[in-house]
């Protein structure tokens, strides 16, 4: 069951510069920031209502977000939906033959997460997350 939009991810060249607009201008509070080596990103999460905006700066041009920037430039990168049970959700998707990036949930910034393949949603990269308490 999908509960809400957990966050929208935005690929940016510089986290500091993007924070100038999203945090200072829009006034959205930063509630977490981290470097996630295995995903090759430096990220900041900003609260907006019941959801978040996730700013993603690549650690290298070869990382997935680095390649996205190279190909498309800055902009919306993915959308993440919150579910109470990411394992069950993923099993259901496998059963329906939906194209996936992750065959098993893994730990991400938003909790236990998995990504669907953009092909599954006509070009939109979708993430599912169950926050860790």
């Amino acid at each position: 069951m999908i509960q809400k939009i957990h966050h929208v991810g935005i690929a940016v060249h510089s986290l500091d510069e993007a924070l100038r607009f999203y945090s200072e201008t829009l006034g959205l509070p930063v509630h977490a920031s981290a470097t996630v080596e295995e995903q090759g990103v430096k990220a900041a999460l900003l609260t907006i209502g019941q959801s978040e905006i996730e700013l993603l700066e690549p650690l290298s041009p070869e990382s997935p977000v680095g390649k996205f920037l190279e190909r498309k430039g800055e902009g919306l990168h993915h959308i993440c939906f919150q579910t109470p049970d990411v394992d069950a959700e993923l099993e259901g998707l496998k059963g329906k033959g939906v194209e996936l990036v992750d065959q098993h949930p893994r730990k991400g910034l938003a909790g236990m997460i998995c990504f669907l393949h953009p092909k599954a949603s006509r070009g939109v990269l979708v993430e599912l997350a169950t926050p860790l308490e």
Partner: protein
Amino acid sequence: MPMFKRIDHVVIATEDLADAAAKWERNLGLKATERLSRPLGAGFEVARLPVGDAFIELVQPLEETGRFAEQFKERGEGFFSISIEVDDLDAAMGYLQAKGARVSEPEPGIWPGSRVARISQSSAHGVSIQLIERR
């Protein structure tokens, strides 16, 4: 209260609305509860898929020309914009303009009772952000 309150909706462009809606329902169980064809005379068709306190808006161009069609040709299928709710559109626009952000003139939104304006993509790091005021 924060001025920029919440994500009201996320707009996703598609060349096949029926197929996109079917995929969103299959993948995530999100159902289209409302459809608008050529809202306010615009050359597109939209479906609204509620999720939590927000919704996904799928948009398919119906014409070769017009603002949306031009952008669709350039950008193709996928994310189009996010819409952020504000209580007072004029106040939010004045505030942003004073901060140096470029914002379009307000206009009626396609969803009844709404008024919208767009922040330029160059001000928002490549993201097309629509501000929406609901009455």
